[in-house]
């Protein structure tokens, strides 16, 4: 039997809710909407959604505050925050409040459906949400996602902002093959006209800092013609 998953969309633009809700319903979800933070918190209690799509800029309390309050209450319902993608500051802020994913408006609604399904899959498998973890570690490598710093054998690495974001993305998706296009889309954000070589440059920077040998990788493996994979088993640090 296929379950019908419940999605709550929170946005202060009624015209947006009026078109997005029917779209998600047709995609097979049970959908509720809220126009502000207080209504959202009340709806979450009654409706018990499986995923929340939450705009940052909503009337008080704003999206971040809603997210923070839910996490403080021990509610770990996956949240997709509608905020600026690619901006490390914004990303760190959303992360600090415990968002699981983020998407920037205007977006392809098909992409939203794909992300909702991905979060549901992860929740079904009871996999830990790396997306909302502050610190991740694999062996001697530790990254702090809020302060955007990384350490290898307790020695801090001098990584550029982009290289850190690549490492962070790979560690959040351990053992998954990540294509160069996926990395460009997730990290460079705005329609950056890069070639895949741009990604390779950052991977080279990372390998140099991590003292990682591409022929016998300890951290980042090259999947020829496709992309990269973080080879370690990542853990969430306290």
């Amino acid at each position: 039997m296929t379950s019908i998953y419940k999605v709550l969309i929170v946005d202060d633009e009624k015209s947006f809710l009026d078109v997005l809700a029917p779209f998600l319903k047709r995609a097979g979800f049970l959908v509720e909407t809220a126009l502000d933070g207080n209504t959202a918190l009340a709806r979450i209690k009654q409706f018990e959604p499986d995923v929340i799509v939450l705009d940052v800029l909503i009337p008080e309390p704003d999206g971040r505050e809603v997210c923070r309050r839910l996490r403080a209450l021990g509610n770990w319902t996956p949240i997709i925050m509608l905020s600026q993608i690619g901006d490390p500051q914004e990303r760190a802020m959303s992360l600090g409040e415990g968002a699981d994913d983020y998407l920037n408006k205007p977006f392809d609604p098909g992409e939203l459906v794909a992300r909702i399904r991905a979060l549901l899959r992860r929740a079904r498998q009871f996999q830990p949400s790396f997306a909302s973890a502050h610190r991740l570690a694999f062996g001697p490598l530790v990254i702090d996602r809020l302060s955007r710093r990384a350490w290898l054998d307790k020695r801090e690495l001098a990584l550029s902002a982009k290289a850190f974001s690549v490492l962070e993305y790979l560690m959040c998706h351990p053992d998954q093959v990540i294509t160069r296009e996926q990395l460009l889309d997730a990290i460079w954000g705005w329609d950056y006209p890069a070639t895949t070589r741009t990604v390779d440059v950052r991977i080279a920077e990372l390998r140099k800092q991590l003292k990682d040998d591409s022929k016998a990788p300890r951290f980042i493996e090259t999947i020829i013609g496709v992309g990269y994979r973080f080879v370690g088993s990542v853990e969430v640090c306290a």
Partner: protein
Amino acid sequence: MTMTSTRLRYALVLGGIPSILGLSLALVLQSNIFPNLLLKGQIIIDLGTLMLLSSLMLSGIAWAGSFLSWYCLRRGAQALAEESKRHTDKHHRFIRRLEHEMKTPLAVLQVSLASLDQQYCPGDQERQAVRSAIARLHRLIQDLRKLADLETYSLEQKPVDLAELLQETISAVQDAPGRSGRSISLITSRIPWPLASVKGDRDLLMLAFYNLLDNACKFTHPGDAIEVRIREDGTAVTVDVADNGPGIAEEDLPYLFEELYRGKNARNIEGNGLGLAVVKKIVECHDGRITVRSRPGQGTVFTVQLPQL
């Protein structure tokens, strides 16, 4: 900072010269260097003291005047800088608000179109027209966001090999839809020494040169030639992006880097008038400068100068 220290130097010179001259004259008069002047010894000594006091007084006045003028100039420069910052901040806020106000209606359009595709077979001509219009607005919003982001972007400061970066940028442009067929050549001066690197943000520099090259492609036809020339003069690395397109009208040149400005020749060419504004912003973020020369009917050369490492 440089202006202020220049003014301070002027003030020191203006105040210091009368003081030094007065003191030197007084000392000369009191010395025995010119014995014939000592015929009226007492009077001469008194004259020396008088000269010394006068010179001290005059130099004091000169110092006070110089300080006052330096202070007024400094205050003026500060006020000008504050005014300019206020204007930039206001402009930045406007761009942010514009982007925010545009993105919600666009998101509604985008979801509505996807809904229509979901319910009915996609592909009719009207929906294709709506899709193109949405894509154009999407592009405009993204470019506005780039401009706004550049105001607060934390610039990476790493050595960048421009020759390698431009080669990569040329490949990226040639791979873009509708841009193939142009012959883009890269001419790098390598003798007697290799080209120096510049310090900066590789991704942003690539975006700037991509926009320039994409522009050159837009205004030329398949088979036309585009040249990218790199050279250095010991202090800066200079990149020319030259095309043999239709050129730009002289009256359009002063406004070319303004946001949303579109020249007469650009009316029927895709674009939104933000690409060159983004390029200028990126070049200025790198302490560089961009200029343009154009001859209608012959072509255009954009020249970017970046301080070399």
